[in-house]
């Protein structure tokens, strides 16, 4: 087994709150400099920068996990990850169908731009990406699982936008692969109030919106190699794979 440094939660400049310096190329470069082995790309309700990040990871020692940070109808943030571009695109289509038609106001919320390899803007998302989808957490969870994806409620220790803040506790019928802690999230404190999580895997991630933060609150995966299925095994603590917060 090899121990890998993992940061699964990063926003690019496509997210309105993502700094305009957060280009996929720069995030990959920073992650490499900081020794990150597995990097998740998770814009708000969007997957459009995953391919570009993966492009910059080619022939370099970093694995990109493609996904999004979805906002459920209940305003709970959850990470979703997919293995193939086919699944990723199917999920993007689902996001496009279920994002409400509330226009972004770049002056208030920030720009929502997609760029190409030459840093040209190729798309600007007109709808506000931080809105909640018109689908419930159960419906989104079902969609992610239909596409064989990974589902991780984000920053569950936070007093806002977390499944626990919004719904009081994690619904017992939710099919999730792990739970995520934010930078200072205290696993023991959470377990005191949410003992049903005792056998669940906890990850930690930076939730980076600015360059300084990329890769700064990692966790560690012990796996044979870096692949989607190995990551799934680690999240499920199966076949000797595991996730450690330290």
């Amino acid at each position: 087994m090899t121990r890998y440094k993992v940061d699964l939660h990063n926003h690019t400049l496509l997210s309105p709150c993502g700094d305009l310096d957060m280009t996929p190329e720069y995030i990959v470069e920073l992650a490499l400099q900081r020794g990150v082995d597995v990097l998740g790309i998770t814009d708000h309700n969007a997957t459009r920068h995953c391919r570009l990040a993966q492009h910059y990871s080619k022939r370099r020692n970093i694995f990109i996990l493609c996904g999004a940070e979805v906002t459920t109808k209940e305003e709970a943030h959850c990470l979703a990850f997919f293995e193939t571009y086919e699944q990723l695109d199917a999920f993007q289509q689902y996001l496009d169908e279920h994002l409400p038609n509330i226009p972004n106001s770049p002056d208030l919320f920030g720009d929502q731009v997609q760029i190409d390899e030459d840093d040209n803007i190729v798309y600007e998302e007109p709808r506000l990406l931080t809105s909640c989808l018109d689908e419930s957490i159960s419906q989104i969870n079902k969609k992610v699982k239909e596409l064989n994806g990974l589902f991780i409620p984000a920053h569950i220790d936070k007093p806002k936008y977390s499944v626990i803040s919004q719904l009081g506790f994690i619904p017992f019928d939710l099919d999730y692969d792990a739970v995520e802690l934010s930078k200072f999230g205290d696993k023991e404190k959470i377990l005191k109030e949410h003992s049903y999580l005792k056998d669940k895997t906890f990850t930690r991630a930076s939730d980076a919106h600015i360059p300084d933060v990329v890769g700064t609150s990692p966790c560690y995966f012990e796996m044979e190699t870096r692949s989607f299925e190995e990551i799934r095994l680690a999240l499920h603590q199966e076949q000797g794979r595991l996730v450690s917060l330290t």
Partner: protein
Amino acid sequence: MTVKELAEKMNLKIFCGETNLDRTIEGCYVSDLLSDVMGNAKSGMAWITLQTHQNVAAIASLKDLSCIILVKGFEPEEDTLQHAVEEEIPVLGTSQQTFETAGQVYQLIC
């Protein structure tokens, strides 16, 4: 005031809990953050919310609330309704917004 009296006075739709409408309403809590409700709502309160997830029924039961009032025409999800029936929690509904709903409840019970 009982849940039944409140439902009649405000012309609320009754989704479930018909057999428990004789509960007395002791105060009211208005919040869409279920963690906040878990931490702060008191036994006997009516709960005004726009959340329709099944955890709403679980938390109303846990906190022994007198009823749930869904605003803006929202309806309980199927599993929410099922849980509310099991937990014997009246779930009521109104097409009004939270502001008007809370204002009317305040006038009726305070």
